[in-house]
């Protein structure tokens, strides 16, 4: 069967990260945007979760953990461990 698609429609797609919070608590930039050091939102600047279920931009939380000996969640001060993606 021959299908002709009339160019009446424009294809549009949207994406967003599946995060409960709107923005990262460290940089206060939207998760669907990117951290202050990045320019392009998307896979290169993903959100990451700790076992405490608090989410931050990967770049933001790594910067914090690298700058401090205590590996604490900035939100709840519990020990920070990355949540493995078992979703």
């Amino acid at each position, binding site marked *: 069967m021959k299908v002709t698609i009339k160019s009446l429609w424009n294809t549009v797609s949207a994406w967003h990260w599946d995060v409960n919070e709107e923005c990262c608590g460290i940089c206060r930039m939207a998760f669907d945007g990117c951290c202050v050091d990045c320019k392009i939102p998307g896979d290169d600047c993903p959100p990451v979760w700790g076992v405490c279920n608090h989410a931050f931009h990967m770049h933001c939380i790594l910067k*914090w953990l690298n700058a401090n000996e205590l590996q604490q969640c900035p939100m709840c001060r519990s020990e920070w461990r990355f949540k493995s993606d078992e979703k």
Partner: protein
Amino acid sequence: MFRLKELQKKQQQQQQQQQQAAAPATNGTDAVTTEPTDVKRQNSNDLKEIRKQKSKDSYFSLKTKQSSESGSKRANPAELRAQKDIDEMEVPVGCAVSFKDTNDILNFNLSITPTDGLYQSATFQFTINIPSTYPYDPPKVHCDTLVYHPNIDLEGHVCLNILRQDWMPVLNIGTVIFGLMTLFLEPNPDDPLNKEAAQLMIDNKKSFEANVRQSLRGGYISNRQFPKLL
């Protein structure tokens, strides 16, 4: 550039109109019927173009305005974050923030007038500096008013847990101001900078309170005169 082009176009139009005015007299009736429609079409095209340019113009002018507002250099992450903090901040009653230089969001003054407690109605000035590593490092706070307080030494250094060991990048300028206000409502002798005042507060709360009142009235404590704040 855009204006120049517009001017050139206007001149061309004027020339065409002059030609039109001259044309009927020389070329007869045919020319009169064809030329005006051509001009009309051209005019509408010009209009479209001018509109396009205008929208582009305003777009660019907005851009340049925004960039000039934040200074000639690109806003750094600390500035971006501080701006967000200040936009969302709810300043507690008795606190007032003032900027020395409105282009410099990283340095500002804070005045605190406690509405309750021992230090009620006295006004204390603070200078706050946001480091370029903010929010990974806490704001630097200095007390510019000489004060008799267990957590503020006579040089103006402030001891507040969230400004030091308990700083977290999720805290913001608003929470720091709130913390400073709390310091006046509830001085904490367990974490002192002015050890003398803290020890007295633990040993003899009545005489500590008397000392605070005396200091706020501009009196001497341990041979040091305090400014009159009440």
